[in-house]
């Protein structure tokens, strides 16, 4: 039979001054762990919200991002006649060619400039991306030098408010609306008319083509047909897959985060160990008494491990609470796939918080292991005589 948990809990709280430093230390480690993971989750979420499983993204063979891809007008026209492509009510193939370019824009806080992705697209392109909705102003008019920016980008860059004008490629552009992309990759973009954008940036070709497949089987056929057709130097990927590959940006963050958390947790383990050794030391006679009353060695061992775990769990909960205010906070980073500013939100999911607390408990258990073994091995009579 184990000692009651309330015993452990009171032992942790009664010596709160001694344990506070350890609890705070563990809380800091967990906060860092959770925040870095939240960043990675946010980045991945942005990618996973982007694709539609029915859509196929087509880019030039060998290019990793739309901004480095080229699809000629002729190739675009050829694709129109493929039978595997779905058609709208009027019988038109659901195909959109986009031109993605990078422009340099000053940040709103005046701290230099950053690259912004500008997507030129057709009305069909908007139809293919229903998660993007207008939240203020109006959509751009084809043939006019107008842009619609994502709300997140409007908060990060100067001249992105509705009615603002900015100069790019020697021409003045007017912001006429704001859209929301529901945490998709489009939240990091500025949209304008496709043909207007080709004229403005003097491009002969498009960057990518997005098509809606008539069926899942048709989607496979489009991909394999592009792969085998030697005349078309193009490659198709399901849109979902295309964007999940872009998530590679989150990998270095995860690696860095795990490295940081590991290094910090080693420190936290020693802190927990120190606290638990002190606890064992100050309760030597208590341990002797419990043994005399008939409690077994393993009960004592377990009791101290539980106490260490409890201590760490308190730190873990505190760490999650420390991290929580940053949930939903938008931030940006330079994406090495698109070479432009990517905005995303810190996302602290319940699973992530649970992981943080589990992580803390592991720190507590590892840290209390040696002190607990020492406690369980104390000779009874010597323990009783200790002061």
């Amino acid at each position, binding site marked *: 039979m184990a000692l*009651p948990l309330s015993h452990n809990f009171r032992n942790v709280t009664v010596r709160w001054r001694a344990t506070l430093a350890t609890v705070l230390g563990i809380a800091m480690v967990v906060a860092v762990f959770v925040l870095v993971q939240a960043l990675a989750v946010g980045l991945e979420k942005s990618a996973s919200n982007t694709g539609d499983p029915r859509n196929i993204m087509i880019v030039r063979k060998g290019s990793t991002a739309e901004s480095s891809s080229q699809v000629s007008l002729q190739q675009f026209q050829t694709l129109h006649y493929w039978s595997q492509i779905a058609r709208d009510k009027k019988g038109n193939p659901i195909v959109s060619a986009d031109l993605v370019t990078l422009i340099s824009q000053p940040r709103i806080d005046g701290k230099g400039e950053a690259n912004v992705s500008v997507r030129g697209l057709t009305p069909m392109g908007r139809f293919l991306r229903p998660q993007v909705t207008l939240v203020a102003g109006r959509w751009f008019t084809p043939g006019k030098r107008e842009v619609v920016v994502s709300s997140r980008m409007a908060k990060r860059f100067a001249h992105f408010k509705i009615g603002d004008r900015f100069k790019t490629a020697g021409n003045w552009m007017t912001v006429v609306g704001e859209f929301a992309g529901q945490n998709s990759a489009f939240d990091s973009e500025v949209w304008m008319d496709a043909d207007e954008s080709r004229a403005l940036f003097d491009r002969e070709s498009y960057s990518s083509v997005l098509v809606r497949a008539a069926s899942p089987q048709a989607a496979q056929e489009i991909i394999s047909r592009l792969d085998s057709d030697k005349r078309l130097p193009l490659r198709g990927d399901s849109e979902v897959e295309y964007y999940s590959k872009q998530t590679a940006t989150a990998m270095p963050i995860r690696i860095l985060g795990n490295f940081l958390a590991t290094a910090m947790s080693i420190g936290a383990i020693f802190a927990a160990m120190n606290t638990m050794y002190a606890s064992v030391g100050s309760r030597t*006679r*208590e341990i002797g*008494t419990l043994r*005399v*009353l008939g409690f077994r060695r393993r009960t004592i061992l377990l009791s101290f491990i539980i106490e260490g775990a409890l201590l760490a769990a308190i730190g873990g909960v505190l760490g999650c609470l420390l991290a929580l205010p940053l949930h939903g906070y938008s931030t940006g980073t330079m994406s090495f796939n698109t070479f432009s500013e990517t905005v995303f939100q810190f996302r602290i999911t319940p699973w992530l918080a649970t992981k943080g607390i589990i992580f803390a408990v592991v720190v507590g258990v590892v840290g209390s292991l040696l002190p607990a073994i020492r406690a369980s091995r104390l000779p009874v009579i010597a323990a009783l005589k200790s002061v």
Partner: protein
Amino acid sequence: MAEPIVQIRNLSKIYQQGEINVTALDNISLDIAGAEFLTLMGPSGSGKSTLLHIIAGIDRPTSGECRVQNVDVTKLNESQLADWRNQNVGFIFQTFNLIPVLTAAENVELPLLLTQLSKKQRHNQVATALELVGLSDRSKHLPRQLSGGQEQRVAIARALVTDPALIVADEPTGNLDSHSAHEVLGVLQSLRRDAGKTIIMVTHDPKAAAFGTRQIHLEKGELS
């Protein structure tokens, strides 16, 4: 004399301190009857605590036999001893040894956590034990909120809550003023008289020893 509850035969305990052997107990034989209040007296280092520890199953002799209620405690392994102690012996220490974070009632309940009793049964037994030592109104108090005498009475309640045949006490009044000491000794005395417990008490104090029914003196590990 009635059937002895404790039978000690040729008991010796030799400590090794470096290269020197220190004899704590030298070939002791002793019978203790049921419902006896035995006091062990003697100067420091005479071996009286060692003898008490062996009878109580928390120390082992170098040689000899110690039967308590016909169980040779020297032959039990460590986990058997732990169970045996829980069921058969109640302990009272000089320094009370209550768990500081537990209330009086929770301290008394500790040995019962190792039994199969239900929560209700445990609470009933705790209440009875606290009543026996006159501390029913202090059950929710923490040890630091009690006087020394009250703490020791809680410890007595803890010792008798499992209803053991044998209660051992190592200088139970050593840390108490004379009034509290008198109270505690009175409780022990009534435990023998009214509940038929066998009590073995180590003490320095002849006044305390006078509460017992028999006194034994130890000198350099031998009965004198």
